[in-house]
């Protein structure tokens, strides 16, 4: 019992270490963080301005509502990008710095190692996404008087479990292909969002893509966040989004860990777990 307690304590300290290291890195690269945030704001604006552009071109739409729909989609895109990017750094940044061998030979379980990366990614992503939402909403003078932001936050946090699970699967790709593995994470992000109704309802998709939408956590995340912000839905009304997110999350984390372990084993067998690939 005592030994179990000792191991558990060491794992929790290790988990805190992963978060601590990433916090140091954000602090040390603060100006770069600011530059990337400006880029994300600019990117989001190019999408959200489409609503006003359609009206200016003679289209008849509810501009305020469409603006909010696009904004939620764009923020979700950015959020998912941050989660995948940070998890992919589990391998790619460490390989670039040369620390990968030291991290992977430390007596920290891979579940805790990746869990720490996921925890930091969620915290970092939520702060950046909230800021992004506020800054872009300010540009369009969005009022959103009935928005239920706490319920939207609960949906996003629950969806993040699934996103982290999928991120674990993509984060192992740089171990298998040091040159191109990182970019495959962006492919996963794009595929996930295109089938999930990022800027449109999933009903406009071909039938086979709607099947994929049904198993994508981003579908339920987008629906839930939109319902909470645009309709003011509370958690009771969001049951149809929350339970699928809980189920997909419960499956995706063990699956993500299993995929990472297979990739790590492959890398160890073929000598790819090293700084130079």
């Amino acid at each position: 019992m005592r030994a179990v307690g000792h191991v558990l304590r060491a794992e929790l300290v290790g988990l805190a270490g992963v978060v601590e290291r990433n916090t140091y890195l954000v602090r040390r690269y603060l100006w770069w963080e600011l530059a990337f945030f400006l880029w994300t704001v600019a990117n989001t604006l190019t999408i959200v301005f489409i609503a006003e552009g359609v009206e200016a071109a003679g289209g008849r739409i509810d501009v305020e509502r469409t603006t909010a729909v696009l904004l939620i989609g764009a923020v979700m895109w950015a959020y998912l990008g941050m989660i995948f990017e940070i998890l992919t750094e589990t391998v790619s940044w460490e390989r670039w710095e040369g620390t990968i061998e030291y991290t992977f030979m430390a007596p920290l379980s891979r579940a805790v190692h990746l869990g720490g990366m996921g925890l930091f990614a969620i915290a970092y992503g939520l702060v950046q996404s909230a800021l992004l939402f506020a800054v872009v909403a300010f540009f369009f003078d969005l009022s959103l008087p009935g928005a239920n932001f706490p319920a939207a936050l609960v949906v996003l946090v629950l969806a993040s479990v699934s996103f982290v699970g999928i991120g674990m699967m993509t984060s192992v790709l740089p171990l298998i292909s040091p040159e191109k593995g990182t970019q495959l994470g962006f492919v996963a992000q794009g595929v996930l969002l295109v089938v999930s109704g990022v800027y449109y309802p999933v009903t406009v998709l071909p039938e086979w893509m709607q099947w994929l939408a049904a198993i994508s956590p981003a579908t339920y995340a987008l629906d839930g966040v939109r319902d909470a912000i645009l309709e003011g839905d509370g958690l009771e009304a969001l049951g149809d989004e929350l339970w699928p997110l809980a189920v997909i999350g419960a499956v995706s984390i063990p699956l993500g860990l299993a995929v990472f372990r297979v990739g790590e084993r492959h890398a160890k067998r073929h000598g790819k777990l090293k700084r130079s690939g």
Partner: protein
Amino acid sequence: MHAVSISDLRKDFRRRNGRRLRRERVPALRDVSFTIERGECVAVLGQNGSGKSTLVRLLSTLLLADGGTARVFGHEISRDSRAVRRLVNRVSVEASFFKKMSSAENLAYAARFYGMTPAETGPRIPEILARVGFPAERRGEPMENLSRGMQQKVALARALLTSPVLLLLDEPTTGLDPRSRLEVRALVRDVRETHDATVLLCTHDLEEAEALADRIGILDGGRLVCLAPAEELKRRYGAATLEEVFFAATGRALEDDEEAAD
């Protein structure tokens, strides 16, 4: 119980050869067997590509062997890898740090991975950095501002911070100036005396091997051709120097490079 016990250890890498589609197997270690006693320092000499780094990376649990067994204090390296990791740390030829982070920050997060809390590392990091001769006023500086010699001292501090009972040194002084080399050597001696650490030193620095090791082994093309105290090797090969021993044992000079397998 031996600190390290290796029996018929084998590792191959697959490499594409020219225009052939099939990859061919390139042996990096071939049926290597030896033991290291607790508190002993064993140096393994070899050219680039002789299998030294492969040996260190196998014992660090970063590679899976293709045959044979290796145990660290009784723990088999692939089946019981987490127990092995708790006992081992290493210093390699590249210091390898997050370069924008300071030495204190790099050491702090690395120690957390070994279960050390901020309360433990708070006093320990300044103490260990002082011990390796790292100036206190530079603890907050990014690693990228430090010389290679300084970085290597921090690498040694990182390894010592977790109190490893097996210290793997993979060419720890390569590329350092003579003064830094001597300082690192003095530190390794100090660690052995004060930490009860067992040391496996892989190097192609003959002088370093002779100065630090109780026994010296020679890896050639992935095979361990001999392992004995320096004086015994000289007697065995009728040689006056380790350089002559190496030539007699392998038919090559240490400076001639093999094709790197690892």
